[in-house]
């Protein structure tokens, strides 16, 4: 189980996370929702060890992650497919996938896992030799998820997997997420598309300007007017950018 407690993160004078606490049980799919700048990506980057929290705790099965090197966190099986996909554009699809498995100890099962990823995203097999940067947005997202899966995640963190994709592709990506969830992969999903995210989640956590505003099960949140209020009040306040 992953447990965040009283997590604070600052970028210079910007206090991006103000005491965020949340829990993620094994096998659960939890969505982290909220408007731009709420601190969703920062939360994931803190879990991955890319940004250092100024205080608070990130514990995975009782092991404290805060202060660990990203490499060690990946070795523990906590893998992120980051916002904007961030695939290696100049590397081939096959090389991108190989990079996902860089920290694995059991290199022997890489081949069979690669087969699984290709079964999930057949297009990636066809495009193996092509440079990652030449793929379409949807294919790049598939590559980003496939790359993360090859790290053998115990917890898979997906940051805005549907951003900028055509509706049909969004549907396909969400089907894959549901499929992974039903196979028992623990998922922490960051989404702006709240409706779609709530539909696939066991539980949701709503962030607003760096604090947890609301959390609950799908049923509790589905008709909650508070959800809309948070999104709308923020939208009226003008657009702002996520801190990461």
């Amino acid at each position, binding site marked *: 189980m992953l447990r965040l407690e009283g997590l604070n993160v600052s970028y210079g004078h910007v206090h991006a996370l103000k005491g965020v606490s949340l829990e993620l049980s094994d096998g659960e799919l939890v969505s982290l929702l909220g408007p731009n700048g709420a601190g969703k990506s920062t939360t994931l980057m803190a879990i*991955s*060890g*890319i940004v250092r929290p100024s205080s608070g705790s990130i514990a995975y099965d009782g092991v404290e992650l805060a202060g660990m090197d*990203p*490499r060690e*966190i*990946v*070795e523990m099986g906590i*893998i*992120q497919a*980051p916002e904007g996909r*961030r*695939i*290696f*554009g*100049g*590397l081939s699809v096959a*090389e991108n996938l*190989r*990079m*996902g498995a*860089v*920290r694995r100890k059991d290199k022997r099962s890489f081949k069979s896992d690669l087969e699984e990823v290709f079964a999930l995203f057949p297009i990636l097999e066809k495009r193996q030799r092509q440079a990652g940067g030449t793929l379409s947005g949807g294919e790049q997202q598939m590559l980003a998820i496939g*790359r993360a899966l090859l*790290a053998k995640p115990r917890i898979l963190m997906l940051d805005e997997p549907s951003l900028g994709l055509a509706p049909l592709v969004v549907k396909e990506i969400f089907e894959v997420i549901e499929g992974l969830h039903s196979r028992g992969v623990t998922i922490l999903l960051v989404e702006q598309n709240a409706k779609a995210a709530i539909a696939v989640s066991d539980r949701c956590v709503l962030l607003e300007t760096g604090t947890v505003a609301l959390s609950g099960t799908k049923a509790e949140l589905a008709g909650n007017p508070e959800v809309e209020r948070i999104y709308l009040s923020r939208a009226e306040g003008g657009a702002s950018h996520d801190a990461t």
Partner: protein
Amino acid sequence: MTQLEYLLQQLINAVSMGSLYALMAIGLAMVFGILRLINFAHGDLIMVGSYGVLLLNAAGLPFIAAAAAGAALSGVAGLLMERLAYRPIRGAGDVAMLLNSFAVTILLENLGIVIFTAKSRPFPSPEAFNAVVELGAVRVSSLSLISIATTVILLVLLTIFVTKTEIGISLRATAQDLVAARLMGIDVNKVIAAAFLIGSCLAGVVGVLWSARIGKVDPLMGFQPVLKAFVASVVGGLGSIPGAVLGGYILGIIEVLLQGLLPSSLAPFRDAFVFALLIVLLLFRPNGIMGGRDKEKI
């Protein structure tokens, strides 16, 4: 000699010169690609390697063994440079790193002067380097052919390294997106060390070939090659390994062309023309020939 043969002869000269620039520029490119650092101290690794060869050869080691050891010595010096001068200030920003590279240059060059005095020493190149090879009417020095052949072999090995080995692919990945590389769990310290080690060994090889070409070794000998390598990597596109190679060869060819075309009264200003051409190129392609669509421009 016909005009065609003259052209061929000059082309071989150009390519051999370009080979040395290319090998140097690769080292700059690998480091810049990841750290955004133009390591001006890279040139001094040439000096380290060359003195290594000189001393080891004087101590009785056969030239080839001394040359290999000299290249390895440059590699070790590059590793130490990264560990002692750059890693501790890695978070401090690009300008701090650049200034540090000047500091390392001054330190190494003065260390060289303290140990070896500023006077140059003759480089013990073997007979085989100085022979003249006649291919029909085309006469070229064996050193030119050795330089070209060595570079081709090293480029093939380097290509295998960056496309087939995990650490080589990691190096390219890290150069493209440092954060994504860290998210994959790539050991960035190891990758940076590898970039320094390989680039520095290549500089050591250049040291041997360059010293053999100019026939001497002195503590300030690295300045000109690093400047040329810098031009080559800017021409090709800073941070791109294929770009560095391309830039190296273009520079070599332009230099030899200028030498042939410039009237003798202007010949001493050859480098000025080279740099003028660089300015013109950058006006049209600010990211170099293979710099891509990178939005970040100066």
